[in-house]
């Protein structure tokens, strides 16, 4: 235990006893110990002068933080519907069998724990797992067998075959962003030559809208932050790409980090910010080293730090914060809370982050792709950028395509591309359903494949999951409902309880015990979640159910037994213990389901 306290204390000191660094301190403490024992939390609370409950509250919030011992090898299977379609469930059973451990538990001797986790952003090369936080891709029976023996032998991760950890970019279609080489500093020079005001004007002309899903006009956000009172402004890059089925930010972080950091610096030039933060989702931890190296390089050549490119008064630098497995932190105010070392509970808006953001300071929060795109505007000008796409959705959009298609990967299209065009390009032979925008997005049926990817038609943060005729839209929706129930932050009752109830109804239907009444209840719950939730997680949680109930209603109806009501449990089986205890088997000792009303 003293060891745990020492490791915790060292982590606190590394972060200069800064309470806003609590999440990073907890991540590092756990790295040293394996989990977060009670004594370490007490020590951290003491040193940071925080209430113990606050520290425990944060430790308990994030999926990748453990307050109970876990296996020396923590193996988490990505549980998105796409991983499942690639056979993740069978592989997980196989691994559990080989390691003699039940899902969610720790094996005897503490060698391994095996569990599921939300989508890890490897839909183009799944099934995927995380081993002690590092991504392993393209799992198959052979790899499972080999991993089981590596775990049994206690082989350190650094000695595992490097091939297992290989993550391919799978860029299949290149447009303006992915197609052109980028010289670090070139965009910044161009923007600085225009002056701060001139640069903002180019941004305005470009019509660039946020690529994280909401589609807010970036120039308006930057302008509002610039004009907000306060001199300590902040630029935040949201790299918490948690939407199931999305992985384009992963590819940008891996292959276009210079553009992303330059985009953040361009935002700083426009707004006068001096501090930058990139919030990297825990699942992408394997990219941390690379990103830090790029940052160091940029500092070395004067693209970050004091007097950027020799310009007096232009000081800006970037830190990377690591998330720890919480989808809700992709919501910008939850992300800010998390950056401040708190639970990722979304804030009430207004005030908006542009005036009251990180630590109450004026803050710009932009998506990875949005920031990368600003480098194009700096280099080519706003008008050239606006020349592609549609009038309301300018430029290109990266799509993360996965599921039943020959060529999963990242595709860059001008906005306005039709869904059928995309399906043809990615080699989808028998597409029946496309889920655009991830679990919270839109379910597109065959008769709508002529629709276009654009903010004014089918908006998307980038996920594009293809399902062919073998798949069941109900199971897709059920998978997403489980995801939301797991990821609900628990702050507001409509979402915390509503997602759990919705999960219960979907499971009841899946077990063949559904009745007409349940469909009515589901629709009522959908409305409740949509209208009463505190943030977008709760209000978009019923989307897959609402859409599939409209477009694939028979997938639900065929699961119903044609009764007014059917209990989710077997009443006669519920009498079994009492029958056994009393030795009775007379007619009154049974309940006939046919008498159900």
């Amino acid at each position, binding site marked *: 235990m003293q060891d745990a306290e020492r490791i915790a204390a060292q982590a606190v000191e590394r972060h200069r006893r800064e309470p806003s660094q609590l999440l990073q301190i907890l991540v590092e403490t756990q790295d040293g110990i394996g989990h977060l024992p009670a004594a370490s939390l007490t020590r951290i609370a003491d040193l940071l002068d925080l209430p113990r409950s606050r520290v425990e509250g944060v430790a308990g919030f994030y999926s990748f933080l453990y307050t109970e011992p876990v296996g020396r090898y923590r193996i988490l299977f990505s549980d998105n519907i796409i991983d499942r379609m690639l056979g993740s469930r069978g592989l997980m059973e196989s691994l559990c069998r080989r390691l003699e451990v039940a899902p969610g538990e720790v094996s005897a001797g503490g060698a391994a724990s095996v569990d599921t986790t939300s989508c890890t952003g490897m839909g183009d090369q799944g099934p995927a797992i995380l081993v002690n936080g590092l991504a392993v891709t393209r799992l198959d029976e052979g790899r499972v067998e080999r991993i089981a023996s590596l775990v049994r032998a206690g082989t350190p991760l650094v000695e595992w075959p490097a091939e297992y950890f290989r993550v391919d970019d799978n860029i299949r279609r290149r447009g303006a962003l992915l197609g052109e080489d980028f010289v670090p500093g070139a965009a910044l020079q161009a923007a600085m030559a225009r002056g701060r005001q001139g640069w903002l004007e180019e941004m305005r002309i470009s019509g660039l809208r946020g690529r994280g899903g909401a589609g807010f006009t970036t120039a308006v956000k930057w302008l509002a932050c610039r004009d907000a009172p306060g001199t300590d402004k902040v630029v935040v890059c949201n790299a918490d790409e948690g939407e199931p089925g999305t992985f384009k930010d992963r590819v940008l972080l891996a292959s276009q980090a210079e553009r992303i950091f330059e985009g953040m610096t361009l935002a700083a030039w426009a707004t006068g910010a001096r501090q930058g933060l990139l919030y990297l989702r825990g699942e992408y931890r394997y990219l941390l080293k690379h990103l830090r190296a790029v940052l160091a390089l940029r500092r070395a050549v004067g693209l970050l730090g004091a007097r950027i490119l020799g310009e007096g008064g232009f000081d800006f630098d970037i830190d990377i914060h690591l998330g720890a497995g919480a989808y809700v932190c992709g919501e910008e105010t939850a992300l800010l809370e998390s950056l401040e070392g708190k639970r990722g509970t979304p804030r009430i808006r207004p005030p908006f982050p542009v005036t009251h953001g990180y630590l109450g300071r004026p803050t710009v929060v932009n998506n990875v792709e949005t920031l990368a795109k600003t480098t194009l505007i700096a280099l080519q000008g706003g008008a050239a950028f606006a020349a592609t796409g549609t009038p309301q959705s300018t430029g290109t959009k990266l799509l993360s395509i996965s599921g039943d298609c020959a060529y999963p990967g990242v595709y860059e299209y001008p906005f306005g591309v039709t869904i059928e065009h995309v399906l043809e390009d990615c080699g989808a032979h028998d597409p029946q359903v496309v889920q655009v925008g991830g679990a919270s997005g839109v379910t597109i049926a065959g008769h709508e494949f002529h629709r276009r990817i654009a903010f004014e038609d089918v908006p998307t943060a980038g996920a594009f999951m293809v399902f062919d005729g073998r798949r069941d839209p109900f199971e897709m929706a059920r998978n997403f409902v489980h995801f939301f129930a797991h990821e609900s932050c628990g702050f507001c009752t409509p979402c915390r309880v509503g997602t759990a109830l919705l999960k219960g109804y979907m499971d009841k239907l899946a077990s063949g015990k559904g009745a007409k*009444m349940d469909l009515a209840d589901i629709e009522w719950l959908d409305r409740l979640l949509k209208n009463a939730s505190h943030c977008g997680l709760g209000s978009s949680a019923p989307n897959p159910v609402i859409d599939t109930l409209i477009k694939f209603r028979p997938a639900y109806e065929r699961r119903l037994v044609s009764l*007014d*009501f059917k*209990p*989710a*449990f077997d*009443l006669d089986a*519920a*009498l*079994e*213990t*009492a*029958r*056994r*205890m*009393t*030795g*009775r088997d*007379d007619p*009154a*000792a*049974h*309940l006939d389901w046919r*008498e*159900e*009303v």
Partner: protein
Amino acid sequence: MSDSIGMPRVRVATTSLAGCFGCHMSFLDMDERLFELVKVVEFDRSPLTDIKHCGPCDIGLIEGGVCNAENVHVLREFRRNCKTLVAVGACAINGGLPAQRNHLDLGDCLQQVYVKRDGIEEGGVPDDPELPLLLDRVHPIHEVVRVDYFIPGCPPSGEAIWKFLTDLIGGRTPRLAHPLLRFD
């Protein structure tokens, strides 16, 4: 309520399943309003009438959760016969106090009470067919049949029950607002 001359009276049945009759006591707490009520309501099966089986009714009020086979039969009889079925009180809505046994194994409970308990000489779990068998868990009534309305409270006040019934009989969607809506 007073404007009911010539209108057929609304037929109401009530019962207590795994409950304590506290909700029925609360019903009686309407006091002098009961006289108003019986002008528009007649009772079918209920502890107030001692009618043993429920006939066709407009409204069924259920107190208590479902803990044994007999509760299931009674609840199904109410559902079959009542146009509108109402869960009254904490136990009907959540299982309430009787559901505190849900985290215990039923077999262990029966052993402890009827076999192992101090002072029991020739113990044995009662097996008389007259006695309804216990379900392994106590369920709220909406997990066994369809339920139309819920009146929370432990118990809901006489005032709340009065407000609810007068809304329902008057054709208004029942609406309990603070301070009538409470869960304790």
